[in-house]
């Protein structure tokens, strides 16, 4: 059995590099080693996928919206706002 080339990275190192990888800030050589690791390590591929899915899920959290009373109060202030054009 030949030893797979893990890019000289352990899985423990990979999970700490995931954010830098996704942010695109890994140095070229490290990025290549990361890709090499992924090409032979399925669990790390799954881990990376889960991070992507996590980020996508966070992005779907519902928005807070402005309530009418708050809008009304602010508009009142806006209307009473003096012009100070120079």
């Amino acid at each position, binding site marked *: 059995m030949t030893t797979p080339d893990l890019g000289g990275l352990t899985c423990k190192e990979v999970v700490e590099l995931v954010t830098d990888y996704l942010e695109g*800030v890994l140095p070229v050589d490290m990025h290549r080693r990361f890709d090499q690791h992924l090409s032979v390590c399925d669990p790390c591929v799954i881990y990376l996928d889960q991070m992507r899915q996590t980020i996508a899920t966070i992005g779907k959290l519902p928005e807070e919206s402005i309530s009418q009373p*708050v809008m009304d109060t602010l508009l009142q202030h806006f209307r009473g706002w003096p012009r100070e054009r120079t």
Partner: protein
Amino acid sequence: MLSPRTPPGVTTELELPPLAVPMATLGDNEAELVAALKRRDEMAFVTLLQRYQGQLLRLALVYCRTTELAEEVVQDTWLGVIQGIDRFEGRSSFKTWLFQILVNRARTRAVREGRMLSFSSLAEEAETQSEPAVPADRFRALDDLWPNNWAVPPHSWGESPEALLLGAETMELVQRAIAQLPPAQVQVITLRDVEGWSSEEVCNVLEISETNQRVLLHRARSRVRAALEAHFEERNR
């Protein structure tokens, strides 16, 4: 961008009824909105309110323990905009300026109300020793044939986990997981992943370095992933 106005010199062949333009759509151009705001254009104000109120409230909630206090801080922020817009010169983006006002007011307010969550230094929090993204016991021991590679590997959440991930239960879980993070991590993950800001924008508003921002983001995302994983493993048991 569609403009309801017809440029001068252009005659329309047909007299069409005026386009139904929704109340608050003044376009996406920030400079245009700022100029309109300086002219005291109410529609510009409403557009900005609708665009940023939710984001402001969410960030304010990171600083303030109660929704009531957070809403007051956001209102303060808009008053700050009204008072300051004539002196805004566009050296930073309007968005950065707006959120800097919020952060300043939220900090001042939280201190005054004695409800300051520990925000002494975001950078400090980034530099403290942290727990690993994945617990050490999920990796093989050093005397193993494959030291530090997976011993307890993650399992796929399925081919199309969208339905699972976007369910109300999961959303609540994610919200809870974020709320339990240390404050600096909450701020960074909220702005980056909930609001979709760029890292540069986050660094500008929170006044932290790119590196610190990334460290905080990494810890926050890792913890939310772990919470989701625990949730799905529990379900599949």
